[in-house]
C-alpha cells in the first residue's frame, strides 16, 4: 500500500500527500474498510489539503469510501478541500453530498467526535 494510514485513538487518518492514481484511490477504499473493522476504528479522516484536483473519479471514490466506511459502522470526513478545488468541482457538477467535511484535521476530529456514538466510546 503506497498511501499510509495512521491511527490516532480510534480515528484512522489518511493524508494524501501527492496526487494518487486511480488505482491507488481504489486500493485506499479497500484498505480503509478492512482497517476500520480490524482496528475497531470509529472515524476516518481524509486530508486532501495537498491535492490540486479532485476530478469526477476521485470524487466518486471519496463518496464510495464514505459509504463503505459508514456501512462498516464508522464515520468518514474529508478535510482540507482547497477553495480553487471546490470551485472547480462545483463547475464540473460534483459534490461530496452526504459526506462530512471540515477545514482541517483538527476540526475534522472535533466534527467526528460530535457524531452520536463516535465521541462517547473511546
Amino acid at each position, binding site marked *: 500500500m503506497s498511501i499510509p494510514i495512521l491511527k490516532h485513538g480510534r480515528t484512522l487518518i489518511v493524508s494524501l500527500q501527492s496526487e494518487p492514481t486511480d488505482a491507488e484511490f481504489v486500493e485506499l477504499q479497500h484498505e480503509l474498510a478492512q482497517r476500520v473493522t480490524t482496528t475497531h476504528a470509529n472515524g476516518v479522516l481524509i486530508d486532501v489539503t495537498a491535492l490540486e484536483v479532485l*476530478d469526477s473519479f476521485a470524487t466518486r471514490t471519496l463518496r464510495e469510501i464514505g459509504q463503505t466506511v459508514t456501512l462498516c459502522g464508522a464515520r468518514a470526513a474529508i478535510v482540507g478541500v482547497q477553495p480553487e478545488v471546490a*470551485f472547480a468541482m462545483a463547475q*464540473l457538477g460534483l459534490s461530496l453530498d452526504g459526506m462530512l467535511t471540515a477545514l482541517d484535521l483538527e476540526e475534522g476530529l472535533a466534527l467526528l467526535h460530535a457524531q452520536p456514538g463516535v465521541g462517547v466510546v473511546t
Partner: protein
Amino acid sequence: MSISSCIAIRADVDIITARQRGRDLGVELGFPKTDLALIATAISELARNILTYAGEGEIEIALEDVGGRRGLVIVARDQGPGIADLALALQDGYSTSRSLGIGLPGVRRLMDEFDVVSEPGSGTVVKATKWQ
C-alpha cells in the same frame, strides 16, 4: 517559454502527468489560481476518457494567441471507437461505463470554448480553450 506539450495517455499515471503539465503551462502564462484548477480538472476528465473508452491516445496542451488575446488550449485525441451519439454524450449523467457521466458536459462548463469531433470508428478529438 514552452508553448506546446504533448503527453501520451496509456496508463493512469499519465493522467496525473498531463494535468501537471497543463498547470505548469498555465502558471507560465500567468493564469490565476482558480483557472489553474479548472484547467487541470478539465485535462483530468479528458485524459481519463481516453484511457477508459479508447485505451490510449494523447493530450496536447498549447498556447493560443489570437490577435494578442492569449489562451491555453487542451486537445485530447484518440483513435478509439468514437462517440455514436454526441448529443447524448454531452448530457449530464449519461455514461456508457460505470462512471458519473459528467466528464464531457463538465469540461464544457469548466472551459471557455469547447468542441468535439468524433465519428464511430475514427476516434475522438476534443478541443477546449481557456482565455486569459
